[in-house]
């Protein structure tokens, strides 16, 4: 079956203003709104559009994380994914571990395309996609803003610092999404009901023979340095004066 695998990470919602715990042991996540990482919604949307155009037969979403992650998988199923895989794991899941687990799922599911976000907005690592492509020994196209598939190949445009770059890759391949790839659909209520009946399979890291290695010890968390309070000026002339005083003009 022509299948697309999409990585979904549960993260603190992008609208939440995060706070560092006073003892520096982490950030406050209790009672904070959690969502699908925005880039993963874009990844899922792209997979669904490819399927709706007839370019794929099945869209499978996968997450590695604690039991709570199933809420985000259900949302993904409500968006339109056919099946979900939950690799149960507690504690910090580093990108290399996520990539190793996703590789095992690739070996099982044999997708022709794997789509993940360009970065998870909690740890801002931006690593999992290229790591997975390396382990899989397949092409990667990061920061995609346009994906065109043809027989055995994909032509993908990516957002790079200097503009837009287009690459052609042989399939199967891995793609990471950028913001302008698409606009994810909203989930409708009846779809949430339907999603409850869709298959969600639970696995463990151990059952995939993946070790939950932690390469980076998180020593301490701090709030960022605060900027000095600024001044208000009343018009353009005062602004220009203020800039001159600072030696900026």
């Amino acid at each position: 079956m022509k299948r697309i695998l999409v990585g979904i990470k549960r993260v603190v919602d992008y609208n939440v203003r995060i706070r560092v715990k006073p003892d520096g042991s982490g950030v406050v996540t209790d009672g904070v709104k959690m969502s699908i990482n925005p880039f993963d919604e874009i990844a899922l949307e792209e997979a669904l559009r490819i399927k709706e155009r007839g370019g794929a037969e099945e869209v499978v979403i996968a997450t590695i994380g604690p039991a709570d992650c199933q809420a985000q998988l259900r949302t993904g199923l409500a968006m339109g994914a056919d099946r979900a895989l939950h690799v149960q794991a507690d504690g910090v899941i580093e990108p290399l571990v996520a990539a190793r687990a996703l590789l095992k799922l690739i070996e099982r599911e044999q997708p022709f395309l794997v789509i993940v976000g360009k970065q998870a907005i909690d740890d801002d690592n931006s690593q999992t996609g290229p790591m997975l492509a390396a382990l899989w020994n397949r092409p990667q196209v990061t920061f995609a803003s346009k994906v065109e598939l043809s027989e055995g190949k994909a032509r993908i445009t990516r957002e790079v610092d200097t503009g837009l770059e287009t690459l052609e890759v042989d399939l199967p391949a891995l793609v990471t999404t950028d913001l302008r790839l698409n606009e994810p659909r909203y989930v409708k209520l009846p779809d949430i009901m339907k999603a409850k009946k869709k298959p969600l399979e639970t696995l463990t890291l151990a059952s995939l023979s993946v070790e939950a290695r932690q390469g980076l010890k998180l020593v301490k968390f701090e709030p960022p340095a605060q900027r000095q309070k600024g001044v208000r000026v009343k018009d353009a002339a005062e602004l220009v004066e203020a800039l001159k005083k600072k030696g900026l003009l």
Partner: protein
Amino acid sequence: MGAKVLIVAEHDGAKLNPSIAKSVTCARGIPDAHITIAVCARDAGAVAAQAAQLTGVNQVLKVENPANEHALAAVLAPQVVALAADCTHILGPSTTFGKDLMPRVAALLDTAQISDIMAVESATRFRRPIYAGNAIVTVEIDPARKIVGTVRTASFEAAPTGGSASIEPVSLQVPLPTHTRFISISAAKSDRPDLQTASRVVSGGRALGSADGFKILYSLAAKLGAAVGASRAAVDAGYAPNEMQVGQTGKIIAPELYVAIGISGAIQHLTGIKDARTIVAINKDAEAPIFEVADIGLVGDLFQIVPEIEKLI
């Protein structure tokens, strides 16, 4: 024993990217670092010569191969791994080039990566921003494995020129994949300063209303000798091209002067400008969050204020 640091050069075939001089400064923060820059290119001569001039660089390696004409991560990664055989640290800039390549290198080396290094505390301890810069985490990495990282260039000054490192050609016997092919790149040619290195930046948001609306910014920027940036909303709406986006998922910049015009100041945008020396905000909403970080704030209509400023300077 000191550290052996390999920096992977970003370049366009002719010029070394300015992010590399900043990566060198980061590398110099590692105690007793011996610093090598690898230039993988079709013809590496010109770029290698520029790399050799950066103060603190000990050695430059030229890895010439027609397959290196365009920077393709899948092609470069196995070469970097081969070059890094006796290195302790492998660094690249946290640009789209480095973000694409370095995790691929890390995975091949079976090691975790430290993304966006903003400070070096020791050979194994680094600081980096998370949650769009709303928290800073100190990480310690096991020195038993090679240490792979990307450098948050806005956190480091460029290493000065004046050095004269040795330049050596290297030929590598590693199989390179052909499954990834470069087709084209479309870069808007502009004679404005480069956004990532400019000392002054004028940025516009959704309030500019159209690509035409952005013209008043280009005009002000020309007068100031400034680069032009944009918020995501402005880029999404098609008022400005993607390479102008500043923020968590765009460019992270550290100019002397940043002028935010008609930008509300969402956390994702603020991440990109935290290191600007002076932030000026012009917004008609006195409550806009951009004013919380602005050194100089002016409440009012940008369409009136911007032309006035231009006349006054």
